[in-house]
């Protein structure tokens, strides 16, 4: 009986953390156009092949034949076909999707292809058909966009776009033999040029993948609270909370042990400022939403659900604009090939993303752009997304201040954030002790303590993959990509005239292939210092884009524990979010 209970608890936990998100986020290909199913099948094969390349990266590099693809960067020659296929297929998917996107997104996708095309043709030694066919194909694609305005998705679109993208991106690979006889493998440089632009299109997905470990930590922490509240009595709950609180106190002490105050005081101050700014920004949205009777409830699970879309939107807005100035590099290369001296301002514009302030400002602007729709949503009672955006912007202000004034005693670190959250946890424990503990309060308190603890151990999840692949950053990204692929399919379920399902599916597939291709390229080139290093993106996703979810989830759980806003409801209805409810029911049946 006891074993059955324990198995039931584990099943409920797994159902909450793994089964429910995957079930809700799965694809539904039965509803798709047949051509989309064909493209999905091709994408799946390409993704599996890319994964095989990633796993075999060390062996492929040790086998000997390496192609130089940049300074101190070499790609196994056996991986060139898969890299090329990844670029071609992903670009085809994106360009086909773009035929039915809004004008700004059409422009971004066309500019990315144009940049890859001009960059490619500038590498060829030929001034004849290898130059003009790709450029002509690019022009033809622009015309095709105009022709297809207002039309529905069709198989012909896939055919036409595939042929044109092939001409744009792949013909440059024809022109390699002469240089090879002189000892130069120019195709490596062609691939690198294309990858630079593919990379930028994959950055939102890389950042989103970097948040996955925190996502899982948050849903796991919440599941601990939910499952424990159904399986343990008050005493057991309090004991478990006590253990976690003590453990977290120990961790917080150790985080700062051995370091001098001048090293951690700025972090503590800056992190507190970021939290205060986030709270100040979030307050109007919460107040606005409170006026709506049918508003979203303060639940950690619902917060994690909202985070999926919010994180993608923030990442895309903060990074995709860089495609435009960076594409000028392709224009410059083409002008050089045609022996035309381009204006210097082209270089200046292309350099904008490399300015020190660019990352902080663009993230802040991305957050600001999200506030307007967030305000509208808050008016309909949907305030969790707005709180996440506000939580994102608080630290961004601090990052911007530290960039503007590096000597100022300001900083932001995970350790400092952990300490403040730990203090908030201790304060809430005191409040709960004073007000009297009920099962809901204890569940929320346990969830907060568990999220704090599991967040410290989130990188354990990547360890099995790291053992296979060799690197923790690569493993973290791969875990994140897999998690987001499995759980983000809900995006493809919608259908509207302005954003039809076919386009959603194509974008989803393109996104998977872009990110898989860049992860493969990074794994195979082992670039640790340059453009194709994925670890900074993983860190950025984990440190910058995931923190809002982390601390908001903890604070929401602590708020629930302290205030118990649903104290008038029955325990049965308040214990679970909708997703938890279904998984718990299934586990009960088990």
């Amino acid at each position, binding site marked *: 009986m006891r074993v059955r209970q324990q198995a039931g608890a584990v099943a409920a936990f797994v159902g909450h953390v793994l089964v429910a998100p995957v079930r809700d986020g799965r694809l539904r290909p039965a509803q798709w156009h047949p051509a989309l199913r064909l493209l999905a099948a*091709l994408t799946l094969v390409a993704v599996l092949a890319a994964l095989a390349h990633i796993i075999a990266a060390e062996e492929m590099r040790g086998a*000997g034949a390496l192609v130089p693809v940049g300074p101190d960067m070499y790609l196994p020659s056996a991986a060139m076909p898969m890299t090329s*296929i990844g670029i071609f297929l992903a670009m085809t998917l994106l360009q086909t999707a773009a035929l039915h996107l809004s004008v700004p997104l059409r422009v971004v996708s066309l500019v990315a292809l144009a940049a890859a095309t001009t960059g490619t043709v500038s590498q060829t030694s030929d001034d004849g058909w290898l130059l003009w066919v790709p450029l002509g194909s690019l022009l033809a694609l622009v015309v095709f966009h105009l022709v297809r305005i207002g039309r529905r998705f069709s198989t012909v679109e896939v055919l036409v776009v595939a042929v044109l993208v*092939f001409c744009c991106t792949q013909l440059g690979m024809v022109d390699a033999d002469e240089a090879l006889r002189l000892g130069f*493998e120019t195709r490596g440089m062609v691939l690198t040029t294309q990858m630079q632009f593919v990379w930028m299109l994959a950055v939102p997905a890389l950042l989103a993948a970097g948040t996955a470990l925190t996502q899982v930590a948050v849903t796991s922490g919440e599941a601990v609270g939910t499952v424990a509240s159904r399986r343990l009595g008050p005493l057991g709950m309090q004991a478990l909370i006590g253990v976690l609180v003590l453990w977290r106190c120990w961790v917080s002490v150790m985080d700062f042990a051995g370091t001098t105050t001048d090293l951690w005081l700025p972090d503590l101050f800056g992190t507190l400022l970021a939290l205060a700014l986030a709270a100040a920004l979030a307050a109007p949205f919460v107040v606005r939403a409170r006026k709506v009777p049918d508003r979203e409830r303060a639940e950690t699970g619902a917060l994690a659900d909202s985070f999926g879309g919010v994180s993608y939107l923030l990442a895309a807005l903060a990074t995709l604009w860089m495609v435009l100035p960076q594409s000028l590099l392709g224009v410059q290369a083409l002008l050089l090939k045609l022996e035309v001296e381009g204006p210097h301002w082209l270089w200046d514009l292309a350099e904008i993303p490399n300015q020190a302030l660019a990352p902080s400002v663009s993230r802040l602007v991305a957050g600001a752009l999200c506030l307007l729709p967030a305000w509208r949503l808050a008016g309909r009672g949907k305030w969790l997304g707005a709180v996440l955006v506000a939580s994102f912007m608080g630290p961004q202000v601090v990052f911007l201040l530290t960039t503007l004034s*590096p000597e100022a005693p300001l900083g932001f670190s995970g350790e400092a954030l952990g300490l403040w959250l730990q203090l908030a946890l201790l304060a809430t424990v005191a409040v709960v002790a004073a007000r009297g503990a009920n099962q809901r309060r204890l569940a929320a308190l346990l969830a907060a303590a568990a999220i704090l603890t599991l967040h410290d151990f989130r990188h354990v999840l990547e360890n099995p993959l790291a053992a296979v692949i060799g690197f923790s950053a690569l493993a973290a990204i791969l875990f994140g990509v897999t998690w987001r692929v499995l759980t983000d399919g809900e995006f493809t379920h919608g259908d509207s005239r302005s954003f039809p399902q076919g386009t959603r599916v194509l974008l989803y597939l393109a996104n998977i292939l872009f990110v898989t291709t860049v992860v493969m390229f990074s794994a195979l080139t082992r670039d640790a*210092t340059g453009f194709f290093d994925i670890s900074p993106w993983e860190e950025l996703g984990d440190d910058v884009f995931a923190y809002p979810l982390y601390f908001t989830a903890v604070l929401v759980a602590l708020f629930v524990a302290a205030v118990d806003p649903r104290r008038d409801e029955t325990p049965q209805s308040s214990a679970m979010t909708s997703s938890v409810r279904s998984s718990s029911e299934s586990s009960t049946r088990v």
Partner: protein
Amino acid sequence: MLVLALVVLVGLVAATAVLARPKDALPRTNATALLPPDGHREVERVDDVVTVREYALSSGGPMMSSGPMQLFFALDDPEKLLESSFLRLLETTVSGGEVTHSVTALELGANGVRRSLDVAGQRMRQWVPAPLVLPTDVAAGASWRSSGSVNEFDGFEAVGSMPYDFSASAAVPTDTAHAADGCLDITRTERVGDADANNSTETWCPGRGVVAGGPGTVADSPNPTDPGLGVPASWKPQSWAPEVVDLNKTPPMVWASALPQVGTDEALVVAHRTTGDLLIAPGGDVDRAVRAHPGGAILAIASFGDLVVTATSRATVVAHDIRGVWQWEAGLTDVATLPPALVDGRVVVADGSGNVTALDARTGERVWSTSLADQVVSTPVGCGATTLVGTTGAELVILDEAGQERATASLSDRSEAFSCGGRGEAYSAGLSWLERIAPDGTVLVRRHMHDAIIHDLHAFDGVVVTASGRAITAYDDQTLERLWRLDGDFFDTAMADASIIAIDTERILALDLQGREVASWPSDAARDGFGAHLIPTATGVGIVAPDQQYTRLR
């Protein structure tokens, strides 16, 4: 329509794969199965004479680019150079402290291997037509002969021509082990001019070429010369005078190098990009340059005293001495693109998969190897007997003399340069932060820098100096308070012996540790903004300008 879409899409994917299929930069040849692969090496020791044979496979274009210039004569029809494939046999003989080098160019054709040219120093022999050394279908019992003329040159000056007569036969080797391996004894008789016929027998084995053998020989004997590992630099820039050598004096020699040059006071060392040759020019004299071939492409290079260490695309580390004599080779798990470092008599190299390996600098034997969780981002740095390694995870890993992780420091950002200071402390310069780290990994002091992309960091006694493209800055080695800063467009710096040498677009300048300029010399080596790399040696620095002018300051 769906079927058509499937066919077209699969067809385009297949075409994409075909266009990007691997094409070997090295020629594929079916000249004979007895040929060794590129980078194969045989070592033979007879009494006190050591002979190292290194094989280099390349097509004609890269071979010409590496030189020597005389190889241009290796073909009857130079127009076909780019279409031709060659196996060069680079033979180095060490006898009584004397080192001699020779190059034999073997042309790989449809009907076999032909010997085109022998070059030893300035002397060259051109064989016209090139005699057949090995027929494609060579087997025991086969015999063949060639005749023609041998043209002799001293440099580029023809000094004579003589008839030659060449005959050869193949037989099963008397050595049973060789026979079992499918080897053949090739006995040849060679008569040139009026000289007596020269008879010799070589054993050729599949995939190995001519193998070492016979009584008194030791194959794969490492360390024939035991080169010195260098002495601390002794720099007196106030008394340095520039000395310029034209590396282009023998056109069309092309010093195609993607890697920074290295060298000593005696020789300039260049990693040739397209052949993977190591070119060693005594005093920068290209006419006296010798070639060695580590195998594959050279991905990283460093020199420690008279030892030149290369990391290759075959995932090996190969050491030669400054005279071009092979010393040892060691295998890695993955290729390394960061230059190796010398730490306490060991060559430490970090490969692309996060493995750090220490090799005995004199024998190449693996002393230890450790695998890190993250990739390594900068060349390892020695700090006494410990090794400092920076990782992509923004950590400084301190490895002890057995390769065990002694401590790990969490840095504020990913380090771009490390240096070892007094008391075993380390200094790290990242994107924005300069940090002082205790031997136990504790970050003691952290200071924001106003420079990014630090390319050099050196801890002197009392002063830590950073160099970026924008400035050279000195900090107090304890508090990291800034002491002085010199703005400028610096392309490279070299620091040693209380001196800082830097190059900008107009000059090379020498600073003392107080930031005072103690000497300067006009130089346009960095005029175009690239290719300006200072080569530190024991008594000065060198620099190769893009126009192939090699300047030595000492």
